[in-house]
């Protein structure tokens, strides 16, 4: 579940986007590609086509299952949608360094994955 605790605002082209203490959207409906860019800037990530296709996989996953995936199902979902070459943790680690499931979920406007500790 998305946290409903508002910790701070992100300025995106004059709009104030509410973020929770861990930087996830308070209201998932406020997501837009511009918001993704602004969140990625905070993480020092420049979004490329390879990032966007993963973000799309994540948004489809959430639309279907109402949850943000942990790493294993994320790898599986990416593999199913984008091919086995991209369905690898190393590919996702390169795109979303640190903890790909958490970082990518944040940029995709999903809640924090609940099943990865």
């Amino acid at each position, binding site marked *: 579940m998305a946290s409903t605790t508002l910790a701070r605002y992100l300025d995106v082209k004059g709009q104030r986007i509410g973020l929770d203490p861990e930087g996830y959207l308070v209201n998932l409906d406020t997501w837009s590609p511009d918001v993704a860019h602004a969140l990625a800037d905070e993480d020092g990530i420049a979004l490329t086509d390879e990032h966007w296709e993963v973000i799309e996989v994540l948004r489809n*996953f959430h639309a*279907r*299952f*109402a*949850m943000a*995936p*942990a*790493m*294993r*199902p994320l790898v*599986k*979902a990416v593999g199913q949608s984008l091919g086995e070459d991209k369905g690898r943790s190393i590919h996702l680690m390169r795109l979303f360094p640190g903890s790909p499931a958490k970082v990518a979920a944040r940029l995709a406007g999903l809640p924090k994955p*609940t*099943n*990865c*500790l």
Partner: protein
Amino acid sequence: MTSHFSSDLLVILRHGPHGSSLLRDGLDAALVAAAFGQRVSLLFMGEGVMALVDDQQPDPLGQKGTSATIEMLSMYDIEAILVEQTALELFGLTPDELMLPVRLLTGATLSTLPTSHRLVLTF
């Protein structure tokens, strides 16, 4: 038969959707274990079979149920979806009314499950 279902963790789900948080808690436990690479079997017993009925909707307060989570199980490589056949019959349900394919189990096979799994959690 025993070895066929042997696995790391057996999660027994005995409660239906929406009435309490037990079903969701049990599913969460299964997902966490699977996310850490454990092989998980789910057994739907008694009232728990109601969790599998297809065409479930959010409740009157708009709270989402557990059906999306159950559809997600295969993404976590949870493929052993076991159902107590007697419970299904108790509710007059047939396997084609369930949201995903299941394996129906009866008496003798059910009683081997606790020992064929390293750990059992009952919800």
